[in-house]
């Protein structure tokens, strides 16, 4: 289980914008995240809602350790795998197979770990023989399926996911959701940022809502979704 409290400064042209604009513009606030603090227990699914630019991606970056908070700290126990951008590090000239190994290593897996899971990964992605072809021959859907499949099989205790639940067709998406639920049953922890309320409701049990970098709502996921979507 882990908790965090963070505040992080965004150093953009805040002072140059006209004051009225500065107050409301999402690029103009001094702190990308302020006073954000929460605890997630092992085996929990934690959702983060909010409109774009409200700090959700920044929050995940901070949790992952990519961006350092100016104040506060993050503490995570267990191995973390992130899915913030599908195929970060995929190279179009390489085959699907080579990309799986490369991406696996990028995610923190050892070569033998990828090796052990390779078959399962290819099966889940439903790519078949195409996995030996160069990535540039793949359709967008195929790339995202491969990426998600690899993540899904990464040996991790905690998954951080940013928006990438809408992968593939409806059937594949259902498969992904079931996989995540299964992961939670095995005591895996999830933190998910998404606009897909349905997915959040199915996979998470608690969450927060971010607005202008601050937490404006917290609690059971069903409740905050309800309040977010309004009367």
């Amino acid at each position, binding site marked *: 289980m882990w908790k965090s409290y963070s505040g992080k400064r965004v150093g953009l042209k805040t002072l140059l914008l006209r004051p009225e604009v500065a107050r409301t513009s999402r690029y103009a606030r001094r702190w990308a995240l302020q006073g954000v603090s929460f605890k997630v227990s092992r085996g929990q699914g934690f959702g983060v809602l909010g409109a774009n630019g409200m700090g959700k991606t920044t929050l995940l970056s901070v949790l992952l350790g990519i961006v350092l908070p100016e104040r506060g700290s993050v503490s995570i126990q267990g191995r973390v795998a*992130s899915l913030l951008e599908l195929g970060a*590090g995929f*190279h179009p000239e390489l085959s699907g197979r080579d990309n799986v190994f490369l991406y696996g*290593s990028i*995610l923190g897996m050892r070569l033998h770990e990828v090796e052990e899971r390779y078959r399962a990964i290819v099966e889940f992605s439903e790519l078949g023989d195409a996995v030996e072809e160069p990535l540039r021959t793949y359709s967008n859907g195929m790339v995202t399926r491969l990426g998600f499949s690899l993540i899904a099989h990464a040996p991790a205790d905690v998954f951080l996911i940013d928006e990438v639940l809408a992968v593939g067709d409806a059937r594949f998406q259902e498969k992904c959701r079931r996989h995540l639920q299964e992961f939670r049953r095995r005591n895996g922890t999830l933190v998910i940022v998404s606009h897909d309320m349905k997915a959040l409701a199915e996979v998470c049990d608690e969450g927060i809502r971010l607005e202008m970098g601050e937490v404006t709502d917290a609690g059971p996921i069903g409740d905050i979704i309800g309040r977010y979507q309004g009367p």
Partner: protein
Amino acid sequence: MSAHSLELLYLLVRKDLKVRYKSSVLGYLWALANPFAFALVYWVAFKYIMRVQMENYSLYLITGIFPWVWLSSGITQATRSYQNNASLVKKVRIPRAILPLSSVAQEMAHFLFALPVIVAFLMFAGGFELRASWLWQLPLLLAVQLAFVYPVALMFAVGNVYVHDIEHLVGLAFAMLFFLTPMVYPISMVPEGLRRWFELNPLHALMDSWRGAFLSGTLDGAKLGYAIACAAVFGAVAWLCYRRFAPRIGELL
């Protein structure tokens, strides 16, 4: 360096080699053609037009240009390595020091692949013989150059995220250094007064060591020691630089 980092490094370099050589012999020859083409042009320009008087001028060129290309290409590529892999830096947690290292390692791999060709050239065009001393001299020089190049590459890579001009400056700087580290003429041609300054250039110490090892099987202890000392200094500075500036590059990219 953890085992995982080493594996990642290996995979990154392998990716580049696969893409660059496209798994073909032709690709290998094509990649070698680059430094050879340079050597050829300089040879014609300097031997016939500038009339540089020197025995085995072509060998002098070849044994210097290949290590030079490793050094300059390695650093030039490394400088942009964070920008080129922005999504890796921003979206995944990887040991960031790996990226510039992979650029340097890639170029080192190209250099290693070219070594047999250099040796062949020495033997067939120059009538030189294989030397046993190369067995320890070449690996030593490889290690020294790596220790020298990587810290510089790391500093430039991190620096370039803060100050984008660095990548333009680096290209020009190497073009200039190429002529100031005597690469196409022997240092003996430099007039007395200036020579002192040329000898202060650590790149000269390094390149001359390569030439010495290849051409006469000797290593000048003083030069090598100077290169090693510079590498140590760069290493220390780079480490401090990295600790201070690297954490924020995720935000700046």
